[in-house]
């Protein structure tokens, strides 16, 4: 029993954190919003240089062959810095799925090395999401059809853009026709693959929400230490302190839930899906509380376009329903805990 990350995992996370601190300043993110694609080639290339795109790709295809536990740390950072790039869709989820596709080696050979070196973008269409994120830039779309997996080129689909209040989101309705040629896995295999992708995607969102929650808390702390009213920093008022302390409590108790979900996926635990849903609920709650409380301590400044808080709040709000809304995840948890003979008590935690 050891509920800590390995030193290398933490060291890699720290390196990514340092890099993003410099390369992903809020002003730069705002500039990227203004572009039509909403994505920066330059930033993606730099992320690839950091090795992030290669993380999940097996070594034989030019990657590093790491997995869920590494990603949970990286996704926290991607959340903290609100990286406007569905990087983990390609480098984590698509890589995971492609690696596990049956025998269709040509597809793996074609795409996995490109994921690793950061030159491919792959979008994922799962029925739990009404839209496909970043479909406009995708070199390839992996799409669900009755549990089958279809690999479709961008010129084979029709896209309609659905603008979001979150300026870095790029959501598309995708129309397409499944054919024998596009099918890369039959339903009997695809079902598990989609389930695996959904769980990892929900985990990725959870970790990003943790990062967002922490960022909004940090912004709230900074603001309330600097802003003075009644001759004192507002952070010295207890009503302000307690609002932020509540957020710290929520984050502190969401973290281990998210980390355990990652570990459960990494080791294929039978209850992994329940753990992921629990993680998603806990992390989204923390992020929403953090948004609300940070907004409150910012005063009117928090209600402006100018204050950076908005970019993190809107992302937290948007991600809440990504890869399964709360109803979806609560239903999965309910199914587990209300089942006959469920092992719920002390000593059952790691069953």
């Amino acid at each position, binding site marked *: 029993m050891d509920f800590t990350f390995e030193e290398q995992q933490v060291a890699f996370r720290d390196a990514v954190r340092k890099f993003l601190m410099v390369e992903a300043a809020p002003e730069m993110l705002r500039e990227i919003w203004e572009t039509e694609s909403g994505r920066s080639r330059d930033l993606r290339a730099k992320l690839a240089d950091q090795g992030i795109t290669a993380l999940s790709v097996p070594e034989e295809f030019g990657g590093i062959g790491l997995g869920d536990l590494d990603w949970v740390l990286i996704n926290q950072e991607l959340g903290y810095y609100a990286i406007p790039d569905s990087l983990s869709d390609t480098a984590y989820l698509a890589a995971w799925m492609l690696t596990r596709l049956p025998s269709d080696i040509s597809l793996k050979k074609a795409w996995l090395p490109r994921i690793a070196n950061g030159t491919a973008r792959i979008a994922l269409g799962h029925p739990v999401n009404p839209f496909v994120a970043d479909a406009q830039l995708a070199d390839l779309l992996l799409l669900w059809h009755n549990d089958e997996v279809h690999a479709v080129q961008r010129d084979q689909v029709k896209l309609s853009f659905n603008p979001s209040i979150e300026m870095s989101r790029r959501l598309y309705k995708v129309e397409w026709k499944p054919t024998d040629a596009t099918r890369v896995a039959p339903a009997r295999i695809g079902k598990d693959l989609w389930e695996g992708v959904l769980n990892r995607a929900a985990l990725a969102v959870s970790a990003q929400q943790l990062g967002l929650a922490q960022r909004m808390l940090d912004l709230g702390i900074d603001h309330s230490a600097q802003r003075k009213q009644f001759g004192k920093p507002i952070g010295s008022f207890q009503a302000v302190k307690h609002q932020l302390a509540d957020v710290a409590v929520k984050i502190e108790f969401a973290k281990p839930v998210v980390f355990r979900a990652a570990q459960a996926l990494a080791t294929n635990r039978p209850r992994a899906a329940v753990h992921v849903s629990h993680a998603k609920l806990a992390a989204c709650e923390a992020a929403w509380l953090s948004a609300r409380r940070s907004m409150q301590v910012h005063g009117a400044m928090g209600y402006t376009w100018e204050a950076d808080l908005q970019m993190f709040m809107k992302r937290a709000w948007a991600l809440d329903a990504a890869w399964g809304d709360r109803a979806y995840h*609560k239903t999965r*948890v309910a199914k587990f805990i209300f089942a006959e003979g469920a092992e719920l008590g002390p000593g059952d935690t790691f069953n």
Partner: protein
Amino acid sequence: MRLEYTDRQQRFRQEVRDWLEQNVPKQPLRSFDTEEGFADHRAWEGKLAGGRWSAVTWPKEVGGRGCDLIEWLIFEEEYWRASAPLRVNQNGIFLLAPTLMEYGTDEQKQRFLPRMATGEDIWAQGWSEPGAGSDMAAIRCKAVRDGDHYVISGQKTWSTRAVWADWLFGLFRTDPDSVRHHGLTFILLPLNLPGITIRPVQQLNGQTGFAEIFFDEVRVPVHNRLADEGAGWQVAMATAGFERGLMLRSPGRFQQTAKSLVELYLRHQAHADADPSVRDAVMQSWMGAEAYALATYRTASRMAKGAQIGAEASTNKIFWSELDLLMHETAMRILGARAELMPHAPDAGDIGNWLDGFLFAQAGPIYAGTNEIQRNIIAERMLGLPRS
């Protein structure tokens, strides 16, 4: 990260489980806030000690098993799973003992720990006074040095289980000219000394769960002092640190409650679902208990690797006390019009002891440092917000 028990840990769990299966009383003991119940629980502590289970984290020489925190968690999980009796000597074993091991002389350790482990000495805590609640540094109860004795005069209050306890530990003002947290000394004393008057105080459930203690020139030998004269505040604060925060309420307790709540809900589902928020609260309860267990395992693992846990410990107290309230409030709502009944009411049916737990849950956000004080600590020491 490895979230599986080692073979050794699994064998340990089995050993605990086997012993508890054979030894936990089939009938629940009477409440330890009654005289007979207190005696029952003292006898149970003796039985636990007989199997060397009363203080598993202590070194072997003083009656423990030298368990690490993970083994302690396993022990606690099994203990709550077996619905074993509440620990009447909790304040001694979990709160005083770690302090004693850190600051006590060898003589003090030998004198106090083995008798604590067996339940021969049951301990009460004496921090609070009428004028010193959240503001513990306002303590006035004085201990005046007279040769090789301290002469104690003043009052303590809200002292849990002091009605029948044998010993008291707490802070006393040894320097009459001192203010706030200076000039306080940590003293251990038997509650049967001449000059001590104990006035039981009834709690919400009508039982005398705590007491006021009056001191009228009570003479306590100087060798009953823990650490240096005037160092009491630092000693008390050190023990308010994480290990204590962790040991006060182990996750097994809340997981057992959450499990019972799920069962209660399922038995009453037809009625309970008429209020759709109940089902959600039941789920939140289970997820909360699970999160608390995970957080504790994570902390125990980090401590095993040498991490220092500071003000984050204050998040624990808030989390478990609010969770406990949520669970018991939810149970009351499920029980509906029967929830108010005493368990022996003729038509009580299967209401169990939720009511008593509900009453006690009201105290959770107050004792061991109110949740407001914990939020102050989190804000100032963990988040670095400016002091008021």
